[in-house]
C-alpha cells in the first residue's frame, strides 16, 4: 500500500481536482442525481492523493514549491468541508480553481522543487530549528487565511453584483448570503493579521540575528510580505474605523491575495542555495 502511495504524483491529484471541477461546472447547468456524489468522490480522491504526496515527499516549506503545495492542501480540506456543509451552494467552483492555480504555480517552481532537496539550510534552521519553523507555520496559516478571505470576497462580489442587478438565482450558481460571506472574509482577515504580524516580526528578528538584514530586506519575499501586512492593516482600519462598505473591502482582499501569491512564489532569501 505504501509503495503504491509513494508513486502518487502531482498529476494524480491535479487531474482529480480538475475533473471534480468539471463535474461541478456541469452541475451548474444540469443537476443529475449522481453528479454531486461523483464530484465529491473525485475531490476527496484528489485530496487523498495530495495528502499522500505531501506525506511521502515532504516538500521543503522554506521553498515556494513546498509552501504553495501545503497551502493548496489546506484549501483542499476547506473545499471538502465546505462542499459537504454547504451542499446546494456553488462552493467547489470557487475553491477548486484556487487550489489548481496554487498547484500550477508550485509546479512552475519545479526547478526549485528539485533543488529543494539539496538546499543548504542556514545554521539556525539546522541547529535550533524551532523559531524558523514557527516563522514558517505562522506565515503558512496567514496564507491560508488570506486564501479563504479571497474566496469569500470573490463570492461576495458576485452575490453583491447579482443583488445590484436584482436578479434572483433560479438554480445554477447558488451562493451564501452577503452576511455570511462578509463574516467569512472578516474572520479570515482578523485571524490572518496577527499570524502575519507574528511571522513577519519573527522573520525580521531571525534575519537581523543570523543574517545581514541590510542585504536581505530588499528581496521580493520580504518586501511583498511587508506590503501584504500593510494591506491587511489598511483592511482592518477600513472595516473597523472607517466602516467602508463590504464591496471595497472585498476588492482590497482580492488585491492582498494577488500580492500573497507573488510573495509565495518568490524565493526565500534563506533558501537560495544556502547563501542568505
Amino acid at each position: 500500500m505504501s509503495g503504491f502511495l509513494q508513486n502518487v504524483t502531482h498529476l494524480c491529484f491535479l487531474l482529480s481536482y480538475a475533473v471534480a471541477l468539471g463535474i461541478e461546472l456541469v452541475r451548474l447547468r444540469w443537476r443529475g442525481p449522481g453528479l454531486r456524489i461523483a464530484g465529491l468522490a473525485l475531490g476527496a480522491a484528489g485530496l487523498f492523493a495530495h495528502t499522500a504526496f505531501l506525506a511521502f515527499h515532504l516538500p521543503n516549506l522554506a521553498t515556494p514549491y513546498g509552501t504553495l503545495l501545503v497551502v493548496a492542501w489546506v484549501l483542499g480540506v476547506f473545499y471538502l468541508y465546505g462542499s459537504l456543509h454547504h451542499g446546494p451552494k456553488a462552493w467547489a467552483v470557487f475553491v477548486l480553481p484556487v487550489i489548481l492555480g496554487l498547484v500550477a504555480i508550485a509546479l512552475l517552481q519545479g526547478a526549485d522543487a528539485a533543488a529543494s532537496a539539496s538546499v543548504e539550510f542556514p545554521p539556525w534552521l539546522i541547529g535550533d530549528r524551532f523559531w524558523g519553523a514557527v516563522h514558517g507555520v505562522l506565515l503558512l496559516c496567514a496564507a491560508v487565511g488570506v486564501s479563504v478571505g479571497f474566496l469569500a470576497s470573490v463570492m461576495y462580489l458576485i452575490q453583491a453584483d447579482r443583488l445590484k442587478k436584482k436578479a434572483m438565482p433560479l438554480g445554477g450558481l447558488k451562493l451564501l448570503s452577503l452576511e455570511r460571506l462578509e463574516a467569512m472574509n472578516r474572520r479570515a482577515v482578523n485571524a490572518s493579521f496577527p499570524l502575519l504580524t507574528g511571522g513577519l516580526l519573527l522573520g525580521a528578528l531571525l534575519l537581523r540575528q543570523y543574517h545581514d538584514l541590510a542585504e536581505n530586506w530588499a528581496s521580493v519575499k520580504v518586501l511583498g510580505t511587508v506590503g501584504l501586512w500593510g494591506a491587511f492593516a489598511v483592511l482592518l482600519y477600513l472595516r473597523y474605523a472607517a466602516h467602508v462598505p463590504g464591496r471595497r473591502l472585498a476588492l482590497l482582499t482580492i488585491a492582498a491575495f494577488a500580492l500573497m501569491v507573488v510573495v509565495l512564489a518568490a524565493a526565500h532569501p534563506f533558501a537560495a542555495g544556502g547563501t542568505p
Partner: protein
Amino acid sequence: MNLRAIGCNFRTATVDIREKLAFDGPAQDKALADLAGSLGEAAIISTCNRVEVYVSRAPGSPAFDARAAAAYFGAVHGLSPDRVAPHLYEHVDTEAVRHLLRVTASLDSLIVGEGQIAGQVKEAFERSQKLAATGPLLNALFPHALRAAKRVRTETGIARGHISVSSVAVDFVRQVFDHFHDKTVLVIGAGKMGRLTLKHLRELGPGRILVTNRSPEKAIELAAECGGEPIPWENLDTALAEADIALSTTGAPEPIMPKKRFVEKVRPRRTGTLVVLDIAVPRDFDPDLHDGDSVCLFNIDDLTKVRERTLAKRKKDIAPAEAIVQSEVKRFVDDWNRRRSGPVIGQLTAEVDKLRAEVVGPLMARLNGKLTAEDRKHVEGAFKLFQNRLLHSPIAAVQEASREGEHPTLLEAVKKLFRLE
C-alpha cells in the same frame, strides 16, 4: 380499467360555480360514501381551483358519466343538472390516469409548478381511503400520481423559485442575511399588501419588529398583531438607522424617503446592509438608493419582474415535465393491465396443463412397457409443444391488448372460451 375523472376547474367554470360545487368536509364524506357505495371506488379532489371526482366502477354497477355526475352534483348542491353539465369535463381510463398525474404534478394548475396541489391530492386520497371508498385501482393510482409528481418536481425546474410577491421578497432578504435572531424589521405603514409579506418575514424569526405609521392608532394595532413595538412617525429616520430590513407599504402620494433625506439623516448613522422591501404604490423609497451593498432596495416592480421570470422559466420546464408524466402514465397502465391479465394467463396455462395431463396420463399407462424412456419423453414433449403452440396466440393477443389498454373485453372472452373462473 373502468376509470373516470369527472369535474370542473378554473378553466371550465367561474369561481361562483366552483364555490357552489365545492365539497366541504361532511359533504365530501357523504358523497364518497354515496359514490363508493353505488359504483365501487371513489375519490374527490375539492380545492378552490377544481372539483373532481375519480370513480372506478365495479362490474354490474350503474353507468356514471358526465351527465350522471351533473345530476348528482346538482342534487347535492341544489343546482339544476343543466346548470352544472356545461362546466364538466370527463376523462376515461388512460386519459383519466393522465389527468390525475398532470393535476398532481401541478401541470394543470392556475400557476404551473405551485406546490400545494400535491398535498391536496394526498389529503383527498387519504380521506377516501379512511372511509374505505378506495379499492385496488385508486389505491394504486393515487400513490403513483404522488410519486410521479415528486419526480417532476425533483427532475425539472418546474417548482423552482417563488411566484408570490411576498415570497420573492423574503427570498431576496435571504440572499442578504444569514440569520435573523439579531435583526430588526421596521414596518412602515399598515397597508394590507404589507401584512402578507410581514407574515413571511416573521417566519424568519427576527429579533425585533418596529412598526411606524402616520396614524399612531394603526401602528399600535399592527404592532400588537405582530408582536412588535410601535414607533412614532417622527422617529422614522432613527428607526431606519437601527433597522436591518424595512418593509414599506404606506399609501403616501409622494416618496417618504427621498435620496437626500436618506443620505443626510439615515446613512451617517448606519452600519451594515439595509434591505428595503418597498411594496407601496406609488413607491415610498427613492430607487436610486439601491447599490446592492449597503442598501438593497426592492420595490413592487422588481419583485413582480422576478415573479415573471420565474414563471417564464417554469414554462420552459413544462415539456420535460409532460414527458415524465407521459412515461409514468404508460408505466401505470402497463403495470395495471399486466396485473389484471397475469392471473388470467396463469389460470389458462394451468387449465390446459390439467387437460393435457388428463389425456397424456392414460395414454402413457396404456403404452406402458411398449415405449422406451426416450420414446415416452418424445411423446410427452410433443403434447407439451402442441399445448404451447396452441396457447401462444391467445396469450400473445391478451398481452398485446393489455399493452394497448383494451384488454377487459378480450380477457372476458378468454375466460368464457376456456371456462375459467
